């Protein structure tokens, strides 16, 4: 499959990427390309210009400082999965990255692309939301609770570039994913975390957009054990339903995966 023609440009800095975007109003950022190139081949996306940010050095880093792990937007899933710093500070996050797709996808795909894309079944959004991370862009900082606004949609404005995701280091955290056996995307994934600002539980894969489960968070704040969530069910209304699983099945999986995540974190 061949995409529509486009002009390719490689940005060497954030400033250069901004200037290129300004000059190309219909242009799109290209990071790992593991979502965008497939969409372009299917001709679902037809940007006349692609601005490649994957080689921008100032977007490729992992820094642990001031109680947070800050990851540059162009950092690959493979880099996060194999980072000794991430494994030490937030092992659940390194584990999550190691479960994305397959080795070849992880070698190219980036955290910035995944978060900006907000696929309903993507893994990273659950970590961003459960850890209360901050999404930094070339213009501002956005709290996780305000960032993911719906299916494939985020608070990002036209031509806004994600530059960093900063994850506060939690006291305890774990991610449990029930992968679709064919695509490896999450049927349901639950990220549970006990943080300085309370317990947070985020669910991906189940609904059109990642979401928190306040009933589980309240129960876990009192008693951080799998039993505390064992009888908390989320309704099937509004859950994803497709050939891979019904809404009821996914709703049921939320409780199962939440129990497993808490068991691992506790």
């Amino acid at each position, binding site marked *: 499959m*061949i995409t529509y*023609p486009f002009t390719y440009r*490689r940005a060497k800095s954030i400033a250069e990427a901004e200037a290129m975007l300004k000059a190309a109003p219909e242009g799109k950022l290209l990071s790992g390309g593991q979502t965008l190139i497939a969409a372009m081949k*299917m001709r679902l996306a037809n940007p006349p210009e692609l601005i490649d940010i994957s080689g921008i050095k100032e977007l490729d880093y992992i820094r642990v400082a001031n109680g947070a792990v800050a990851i540059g937007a162009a950092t690959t899933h493979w880099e996060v999965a194999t980072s000794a710093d991430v494994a030490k500070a937030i092992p659940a996050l390194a584990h999550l990255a190691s479960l994305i797709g397959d080795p*070849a*996808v992880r070698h190219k795909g980036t955290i910035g692309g995944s978060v900006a894309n907000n696929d309903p079944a993507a893994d990273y959004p659950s970590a961003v939301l459960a850890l209360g991370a901050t999404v930094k862009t070339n213009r501002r900082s956005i709290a996780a609770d305000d960032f993911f606004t719906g299916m494939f949609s985020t608070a990002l404005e036209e031509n806004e570039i994600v530059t960093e995701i900063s994850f506060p280091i939690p006291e305890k955290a774990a991610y449990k994913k029930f992968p679709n056996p064919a695509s490896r995307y999450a049927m349901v994934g639950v990220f549970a975390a006990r943080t300085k600002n309370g317990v947070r539980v985020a669910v991906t894969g189940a609904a059109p957009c990642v979401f928190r489960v306040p009933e589980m968070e309240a129960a876990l704040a009192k008693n951080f054990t799998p039993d505390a969530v064992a009888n908390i069910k989320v309704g099937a209304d509004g859950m994803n339903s497709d050939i891979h699983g019904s809404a009821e099945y996914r709703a049921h999986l939320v409780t199962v995966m939440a129990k497993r995540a808490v068991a691992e974190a506790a």
Partner: protein
Amino acid sequence: MTVVSMTVNEKPVSLDVEDRTLLVYFLRENMRLTGTHIGCDTSQCGACVVHVNGKAVKSCTMFAVQAEGAKVTTIEGLAKDGKLHPVQEAFRDNHGLQCGFCTPGMIMTAVDMIRRKGVMDRETIRHELEGNICRCTGYVNIVSAIEDASKRIAGAAEKVA
């Protein structure tokens, strides 16, 4: 059109191609290196896996222009001086292929995983193969071949050390 320069199997190449040329077409059609296959063309099957700067990637999901300045290795670049790579040997000895369509991608993925992980148990190998599909379903022997190859490579490294 853009002039793209890279090193393919240790040979420098510069070609003027359309920006939308996928790396897999650059290799197969411009360079006539048809060992890299196109199976699904949708990033699922791994038949198109090559190494870019030493890492396995799906060449159907990358544009040739993105490989500017890169070192690319395809299945044709593995054998040295008429001698098969140990992973290729192990696939032959373990009957790791049937029709052979998935094999170039399987082998490139295997070389990459052995480089990263060394000797692996079968479960780990199966996880690492999640991005490669064999439609002849010959996975048992593919896993055996990779297990065997990882041991041969570790053994050879010990002898040298």
